[in-house]
């Protein structure tokens, strides 16, 4: 595969400087892909991923209004495979307020991973869509994912060791400082689940619940920040000032409650909730916090 390719519709693939990973970009989608295996299998996997990639954004754009609409349980099925995976992953969380867009990043990562791994047999592969990661592991393989809990003070705060025997094939992180707005105040919520789409929506919904009524939290109607936000005039977090220890405990307790319920329903495999330097784990087999260890 050439180091640099551009599809007629603007999708671009570039080999990253390390010579191993690829960067696929189209509009707001930024993927980093890596396959481990024989050189010819890896090459075929990347080619298959690239074959599929340029079609993903146009498919989603074609049914955006449906994907931005809150799910009710009686919704029409979307047409595209990525859109269907989004609606399905999000629908499992009803009756919570959720739109299929809550799983878009994870579902795109899953889709490209499926294209790569359907083509050939690899040792390992992952597709990282801005922190929402879909992974594939052959028997006996494992992958260590680093977790940054506060993007303003980036450090490898924790890591998740995922091996082929566990059902985890998706990792996603959400927080109020991220790309999309949050109703909650978590610095980060990292979720391990069976797919990246499932992890993506769960991380979003748990992060929304890590919340407390405190004057240090500044909130703003979502549409004043982003005209097209699915959250409409709901108040989203704009700033979080210093919080008392009691407020931090209260907010994390709220989040843990919903995470434990998701774990019990089999919607997630584990979660790591972080707020103001405090980190709480739920389930989280294989997920280790360096902070907790110290």
């Amino acid at each position: 595969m050439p180091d640099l390719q551009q599809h007629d519709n603007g999708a671009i693939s570039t080999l990253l400087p390390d010579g191993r990973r690829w960067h696929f970009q189209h509009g707001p989608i930024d993927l980093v892909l890596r396959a481990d295996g024989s050189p010819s299998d890896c090459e075929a996997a990347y080619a298959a991923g690239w074959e599929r990639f340029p079609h993903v954004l146009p498919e989603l754009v074609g049914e955006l209004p449906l994907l931005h609409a809150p799910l009710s349980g009686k919704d029409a099925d979307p047409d595209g495979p990525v859109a269907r995976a989004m609606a399905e992953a999000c629908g499992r969380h009803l009756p919570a307020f959720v739109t299929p867009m809550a799983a878009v990043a994870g579902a795109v990562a899953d889709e490209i991973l499926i294209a790569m791994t359907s083509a050939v047999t690899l040792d390992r592969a992952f597709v990282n869509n801005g922190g929402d990661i879909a992974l594939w592991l052959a028997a006996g393989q494992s992958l260590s994912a680093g977790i940054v809990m506060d993007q303003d003070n980036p450090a490898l705060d924790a890591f998740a060791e995922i091996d082929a025997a566990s059902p985890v094939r998706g990792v996603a992180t959400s927080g109020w400082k991220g790309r999309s707005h949050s109703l909650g105040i978590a610095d980060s919520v990292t979720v391990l689940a069976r797919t990246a789409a499932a992890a993506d929506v769960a991380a979003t919904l748990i992060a929304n619940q890590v919340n407390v009524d405190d004057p240090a939290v500044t909130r703003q109607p979502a549409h004043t920040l982003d005209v097209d936000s699915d959250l409409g005039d709901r108040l989203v977090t704009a700033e979080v000032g210093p919080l008392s220890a009691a407020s931090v405990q209260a907010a994390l307790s709220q989040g843990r409650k919903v995470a434990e319920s998701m774990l019990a329903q089999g919607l997630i495999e584990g979660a790591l909730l972080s707020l103001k330097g405090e980190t709480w784990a739920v389930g989280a087999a294989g997920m280790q916090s360096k902070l907790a260890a110290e």
Partner: protein
Amino acid sequence: MPEGSAAQKDDGVITCNACPVLCRIREARTGACDRYGNVEGVLTRMDPFIVTQKVAEKDGDLVSFEGREWDGSLVQGAPIFVTGIGSGTTYPDYKPAPFIVASEHNDVDMVTVVSEGVFSYCGVKVKIDTDRHVGPETAAIRVKGEQVGHVTTAEYGSQMLSIGGVNHLTGGSKKEGNVTCQTMLSLCNGEALEMSIDGGSEMVIQAGQPPIINGHQEERMRVGCGSATLGIFAPQWHGHADEVIVVDDHITGVLTEHQAGRFLDMPSAGIRVRGRKSTPGRYFQVAEPGLGWGGTDITEPLSIIDKIDPKSAWPGLRLLMVSTTGEDSGYFVLNDDLKPEPADIPDPLQVVVDRIGENCEPALSTVVFMAGAGGSLRAGVTINPVRLTRSIKRSLTRVTCGGAPVYIWPGGGITLMVDVTTMPGDSFGYVPTPALVAPIEFTMPREEYEALGGYTDPIKRIEDLVETNRLEVRAWHADAPWPGAPLGGGPA
């Protein structure tokens, strides 16, 4: 649609059409990609752009601020020049360039038009300081198996390479174009790059660094050709050697036959070298080009001696053989059969051999970016592009690349050359066309800008521009002329 690519509504929201998502973006926010944002109602590429500041003293040391080293923040009062790096480009070009900036220099109102040019017509000229034979003239230069250029002329102490150009970028296969684009990008951004020459060497080239040829890092340039070396050092050898042969692939010099030796009344030593005689004491092609002495293929210096004439030579004759860099040398004394025998080199001769090395400049690879800015790029500056060309030719408009001085070729169009090491780091980018993207700035007195039909409405004051947070400040290259100053102007 005032900006062509963004539709504005009354509430300040613009719709971006950089991709099919068509994000609606509020003022001072970015779209879903974080790459495009709404800056005062204008759809804007959000990567930081780079300004340089004259924070250096004349001797090139950074000014220290309150005892600390300069930390890269904007310094109050120091002059600022906005470079095109990261400024983006407008397409089509008939829209005004991304930034048109007003500033003052010694009470003269100046305008700088700042843009990033997309150069389909561009190439890289590389000068490698070496006398080693890197490959025959016109031989293909390859990177990852693709031809990206060719060997051109040998110059004094150096070899020229031509890399890139439109025929490799867009005239060949898609792969050839992409590899050529990445090759130029790496070289222009100062990265080390491996290349191979058909029928020649494997090389690692990096701007401003010594070339590595077949795994051997070049240390120094030759002091001159063999003849020139005799011309410099003959009197210093005189009295310590009876014959000096300076081995060089271009011209090998033989002291007693050479004008330099005649002038010192040295008797002919009767040692005849191989090759083709040019003028007395100067020989072409004493051996094949190679990686041995003085850019020849010889490692055994006596092998270039054709014969020793018994009528002129004498037992005890002292012979010095040396290369044009002083890296290789040998000292011999003729025995009773007039055969050269190796001997310890006397100190006075060793001193001069060492002095050859001392007089050789460090061998470097230099990379000059060459591109044509004569096309529609000019339309982002003025509605009447030929007037820009004329203003440049009359030395009224200064052209810079990332603030660095450029050489403009005489003749038609705006064909420029710039030493990439004088530009800020990572100045270059690319587009998948493939083509290289490079910063370019046109600076002229405001009067001149108005006269050549420039866009006066979008002119922004530099003070307003620096208030946005997207600036990255770099220290000005102290040796270069300040790019914001007016040029003198020349004949019409």
